[in-house]
């Protein structure tokens, strides 16, 4: 959303771009120099699209709901708080109490709680507190012991040996044994079961246990992300797995049996999921007695319930988006935390026509006001990205600087490759005009605003840009933009996993062979990248070694190559904003694990 507060010391847009006028218009409306009708008329004259006008009106309306204005306190309780970085566990003042119930609001109902077939983040949020894995990621992206107390990788990189924790019990009373891991592997690989991900598991040749305390996994090839997939996947009890693929899929999905700190006691459809502490948890019983996840599909309702105290937390899949944060900051008993995510928002550039030329893609990057979008539309609640590895992860290359927003350089680059403006102001070469479609996901105001701003900037340098919006199923289906022969860009996010492996995005093996084909390298559908051989070589070498230092150097090179070649325009890393009552302690959310990952440490103060 556009910030209605004028900041004369910080110009909103660099010169050469229209939106400077947007700011002036808004200020004029706030000062009362302009009526609403005038605002609409003038905005339309300078070519601002309807959705943006809507936002301007909203931003300038006197009674914009729930938008606390720092300069104008609207009541005795209105206070301006700041978000708090989630860099450690929360530790409120006051004595921790034992027991208690915590209600958490989430925006979607789990589809199924079977960890191998769920497609929703909410399910993983819950499963993180109900089930255990061999190893788990903490909030600094370090692997920590869980069912395994330690592990060793053999010299050849093919054999993994895990030391298993003794005395672990599942919620059904069964002890944890190596057989549980073996049967979990067999279920995931069973075609009748149809697990959603076999990644890592399909590299396993055999699993044995020489003494019942150690687990030896041999693999068919060196695969660096192995631990991050297999090591941190959930282990189910053998007795449940023995029910067979169909029954296991159906029954376990409604009543999962894990060995985590919380066990599932009730799930009422579309209403709530109730968890209770498991007194025999191997890490000691949880401090809270009960966790209730209330399903609240409307985010306004979530904010209302935070206000009334009916829920004390929104987090995980239900955490606030950047545009709702201000409303939550106005609630007195609520703290809004913030942490980075592994989702990178970008514009992919279909590798076709002019877009096959590196200089053209660089020009588009120069002409995209990414930092301004982050500062103004997203109110600074995102981190600019230069390539595909998250800041803070070990594979992130800190030496790459983002291209500045500089339309003069953009125009110079386009002139240089012979794309010059015709009589209608649109650039062309050999009779072919530079016309682009700019796609976004329908229904997201954020995406709409961003796309309008970029379209305006690109139009300004002589690239005729027309925005298009569609729902996700359409965009990713066979009728999607990727498979038309027009020049297009599309705004969306990829979400990385804990391992930096990025073959899925760039490798030639990941180019779909048809509109229904699989793979993430969509821009290269018509033509391989002009640096395809290089990126193929680097990305595949980087998963063929388990030496982290060697991998790091390879990922540094990959990021530099991506920055130079601009196969997509890197925009920003999204942030997540869990909001919690001020008396919740031990809560430490991050992008590297799911909501209930350390639920055994959570407590309430008196």
């Amino acid at each position, binding site marked *: 959303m556009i910030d209605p507060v004028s900041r004369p010391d910080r110009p909103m847009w660099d010169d050469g771009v229209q939106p400077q006028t947007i700011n002036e218009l808004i200020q004029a409306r706030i000062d009362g120099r302009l009526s609403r009708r005038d605002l609409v008329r003038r905005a339309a004259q300078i070519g601002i699209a309807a959705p943006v006008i809507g936002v301007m009106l909203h931003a300038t309306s006197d009674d914009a709901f729930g938008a606390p204005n720092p300069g104008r306190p609207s009541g005795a309780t209105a206070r301006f708080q700041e978000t708090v970085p989630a860099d450690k566990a929360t530790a409120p003042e006051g004595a921790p109490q034992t027991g208690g119930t915590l209600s958490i609001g989430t925006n979607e109902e789990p589809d199924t709680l*079977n960890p191998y077939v769920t497609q929703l983040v909410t399910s993983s949020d819950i499963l993180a507190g109900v089930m255990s894995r061999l190893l788990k990621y903490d909030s600094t992206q370090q692997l920590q012991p869980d069912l395994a107390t330690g592990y060793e990788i053999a010299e050849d990189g093919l054999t993994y040996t895990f030391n298993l924790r003794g005395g672990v019990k599942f919620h059904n009373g069964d002890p944890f044994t190596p057989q549980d891991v073996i049967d979990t592997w067999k279920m995931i690989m069973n075609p009748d079961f149809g697990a959603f991900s076999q990644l890592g598991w399909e590299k396993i040749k055999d699993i044995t246990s020489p003494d019942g305390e150690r687990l030896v996994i041999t693999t068919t090839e060196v695969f660096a992300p192995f631990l991050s997939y297999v090591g941190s996947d959930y282990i189910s009890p053998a007795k449940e797995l023995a029910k067979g693929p169909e029954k296991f899929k159906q029954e376990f999905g409604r009543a999962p049996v894990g060995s985590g700190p919380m066990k599932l006691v009730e799930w*009422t459809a579309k209403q709530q999921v109730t968890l209770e502490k498991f007194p025999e948890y191997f890490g000691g019983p949880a401090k809270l007695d009960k966790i209730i996840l209330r399903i609240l599909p409307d985010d*306004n*309702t979530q904010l209302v319930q935070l206000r009334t105290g009916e829920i004390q937390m929104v987090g995980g899949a239900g955490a606030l988006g950047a545009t709702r944060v201000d409303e939550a900051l106005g609630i007195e008993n609520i703290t809004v935390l913030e942490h980075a995510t592994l989702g990178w928002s970008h514009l992919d550039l279909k590798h076709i026509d002019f877009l096959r030329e590196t200089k053209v893609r660089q020009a588009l990057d120069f002409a995209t006001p990414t930092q301004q979008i982050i500062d103004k539309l997203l109110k600074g609640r995102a981190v600019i990205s230069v390539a595909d590895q998250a800041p803070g992860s070990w594979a992130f290359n800190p030496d790459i600087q983002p291209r500045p927003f500089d339309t003069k350089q953009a125009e110079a680059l386009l002139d240089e490759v012979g794309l010059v403006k015709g009589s209608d102001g649109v650039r062309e070469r050999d009779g072919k005009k530079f016309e682009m479609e700019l796609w976004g996901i329908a229904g997201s105001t954020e995406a709409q605003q961003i796309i309008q701003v970029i379209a305006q900037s690109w139009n300004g340098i002589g690239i005729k840009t027309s925005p298009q919006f569609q729902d*996700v199923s359409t965009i990713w289906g066979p009728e999607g933009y990727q498979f038309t022969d027009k020049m297009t860009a599309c705004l969306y996010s990829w979400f990385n996993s804990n391992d930096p492996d990025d073959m899925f995005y760039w490798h030639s093996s990941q180019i779909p062979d048809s509109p229904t084909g*699989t793979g993430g390298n969509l821009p290269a559908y018509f033509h391989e990248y002009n640096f395809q051989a290089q990126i193929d070589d680097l990305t595949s070498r980087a998963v063929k070694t388990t030496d982290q230092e060697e991998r790091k150097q390879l990922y540094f090179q990959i990021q530099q190559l991506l920055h130079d070649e601009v196969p997509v325009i890197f925009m920003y890393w999204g942030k997540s904003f869990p909001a919690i009552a001020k008396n919740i302690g031990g809560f430490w959310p991050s992008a590297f694990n799911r909501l209930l990952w350390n639920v055994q440490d959570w407590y309430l103060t008196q």
Partner: protein
Amino acid sequence: MLRYVIRRLLGAIPLLVGVSVLSFVFMQLAPGGPDALFARNARMSPEQIANIRHNMGLDRPMHEQLLVWLGNLLQGDLGISYTQYRPVTTVIWDVFPNTVILITAGLLLSLVVSLVFGVLAARRQYGFFDNVTSFVSYFGLAMPVFWFGLMLQLLFAVKLGWLPSANMHSIGEDGFWDLLKHLALPAFTIAIGSIAGWSRYVRSSTLEVLGQDYVRTARAKGLREQRVVWGHVLKNALIPFVTVVSIDIPLYLTGAVLTETVYAWPGMGRLFFDSLAVRDYPVLMGTLVLGAVLIVLGNLVADILYGLLDPRIKY
């Protein structure tokens, strides 16, 4: 009468088959599909996706899928949900009663309120009460559900603290009183549109009946005004009203989607909407067919009511 009901019910069967076929075809025509996102999932291999498509039956031709579905339907089997991996009948049955509660409460509320308001407004045409109800009606008609719902939440849950803001029960409670408290706001929200429309309708049809000769006769023979209005006028004014109500019942089913979302009411509207987003065809088909059944039944009830209200109508 019984014969008529049976004939109508049998006649509904081809209708329902037609509805199923149309819904099925339209669903298939929509771009994307239940597997559209799989292809862009970094963790799924092409073989796995082919295998999942096979398990779902998506690799068969469309007409075959439709025939299998219809065949199963006749045996009362609605299939297995693509995303929840349990029988669609169970998935729907989990939430169906909740929607019935919400819709029934909304219907009763708007019937009572619109009858009372409509008749009272008609009795003093252009009087103070009439003007007030017209104003309120237009307000009610113009209001978007999600906004109105939010305003009610802010007033009754946040400011006054009288009612819970959403959900069907408070945590750890399942009593009737608790349900009523949670039901009040959503029932009113879902009813507000039809209260507005229907009370205008009752008003005009009452005005029409008030001018009839038999009303003058009733008054002339010395009946009390109460008796004239609520006994003679209302009964006759109701006949066209029943038609309007039966036509509007499907609107309640669609209105339930928004109301249930705003109030986190665990009903069928939300089930439908959630399933639509992920193209869970079996659940979508199940809810559509159930919706069609409800509409057919609603119309049947309306037809039976005509007979009760007007002795001249015989089946």
